[in-house]
């Protein structure tokens, strides 16, 4: 690691003031950032820890939506959301392993936008809103590609509001060594629409599978997906699986999720 200073503010206002200074980056659970620092892929002059800020933690129901504050860990979300949004609790309960879930946060995960991260799929499928220290951004406008988001320098994720579907399922085909998704699909069924998003598969990160959404909105059944498959273009091909394999697995995950809900 390159040398850095570490600050541990206890209020959001203090943290934002520190982050406004050049060379400062936020540190949440560190489950992604610490390995990148170690590999010298990041060289902040100062890390501003968000882990000791109470106002950034917690989960609450807001009407038909679930609001999760940015510093909430995956484990806290699992236990806070079972009753309100079980599909999201189930997703959070399968991120990495229990030790990763004790530390990793939703804010860190959506800000990082790893192409195999789980939360972006739920955010896109439900039409979530990402709250930042400066504004509110629709999920569709927030995730901009591989490790790219709409966040500006010094801006942090303070929460995510997920509309709560009538029913939802997350089917995740894991790469067993890392527990990340090789291909995973989140299906959210609302009164008048169905949201479908895929993660793990695309070089551009999680994305909505709009053909699947249209077919399922018309007729929510596995049969309605007859002949539907993901084009291989732009899908990830690596040692764990080729683009054809990921396309195929995304189709299988989609059908499993629909079968579980239909």
């Amino acid at each position: 690691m390159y040398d850095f200073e570490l600050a541990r503010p206890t209020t959001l206002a203090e943290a934002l003031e520190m982050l406004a200074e050049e060379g400062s980056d936020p540190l949440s659970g560190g489950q992604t950032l610490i390995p990148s620092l170690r590999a010298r892929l990041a060289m902040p002059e100062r890390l501003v820890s968000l882990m000791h800020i109470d106002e950034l933690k917690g989960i609450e129901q807001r009407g038909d939506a679930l609001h999760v504050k940015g510093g909430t860990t995956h484990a806290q979300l699992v236990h806070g959301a079972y009753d309100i949004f079980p599909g999201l609790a189930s997703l959070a309960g399968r991120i990495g392993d229990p030790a990763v879930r004790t530390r990793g946060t939703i804010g860190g995960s959506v800000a990082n936008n790893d192409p195999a991260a789980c939360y972006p799929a739920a955010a896109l499928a439900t039409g979530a809103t990402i709250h930042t220290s400066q504004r509110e951004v629709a999920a569709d406008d927030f995730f901009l590609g591989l490790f790219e988001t709409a966040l500006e320098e010094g801006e942090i994720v303070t929460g995510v509001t997920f509309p709560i579907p009538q029913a939802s399922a997350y089917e995740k085909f894991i790469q067993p060594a890392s527990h990340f998704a090789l291909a995973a699909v989140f299906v959210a069924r609302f009164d008048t629409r169905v949201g479908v998003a895929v993660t793990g598969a695309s070089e551009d990160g999680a994305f909505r599978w709009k053909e699947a959404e249209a077919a399922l909105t018309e007729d929510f059944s596995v049969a309605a997906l007859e002949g539907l498959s993901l084009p291989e273009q732009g899908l990830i091909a690596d040692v764990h699986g080729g683009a054809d394999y990921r396309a195929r697995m995304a189709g299988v995950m989609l059908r499993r999720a629909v079968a579980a809900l239909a």
Partner: protein
Amino acid sequence: MQIDLTINQKSYSLELDSRVTLLDAIREHVGLTGSKKGCDHGQCGACTVLVNGRRINACLSLAAMHDGDEITTVEGLSDGELSPLQAAFIKEDGFQCGYCTPGQLCSATGMLQEISEGWPSHVSDSLDGPYELSEAELSERMSGNLCRCSCYPGINAAIRSVGEKA
């Protein structure tokens, strides 16, 4: 920077570089070498310790983030005598080389605590328990701790023999 750590109920006041991970602080600076470094990437679980009773990978956390936390390492599980879980690992042949064992022990201790607090896992049949320590539950709940010697049958038998009594 000045960092105060409480490890196994003992306080340590350390002057450390901000880059020092919790794992390196525990092993290299405090001298408790029970916790092991397998991958240094959060993937193997050899470095699992308990922070305020919850399991974390010590290699993926900075020591300075734990000022004021209660940290328990494998050395803190026994109180002169082996803990029931440690004794069960010996009785049930829960290890071969032993490298993963400190992490397995800390993780299983945290896991049994989670079960006693009613935490379901992804493979649980219901959200309300009680949770049987089936193969599926144990593989899921211990999925962060790899054993290169593949002593999983012994590890699971050891955890089960303690968990079922609890």
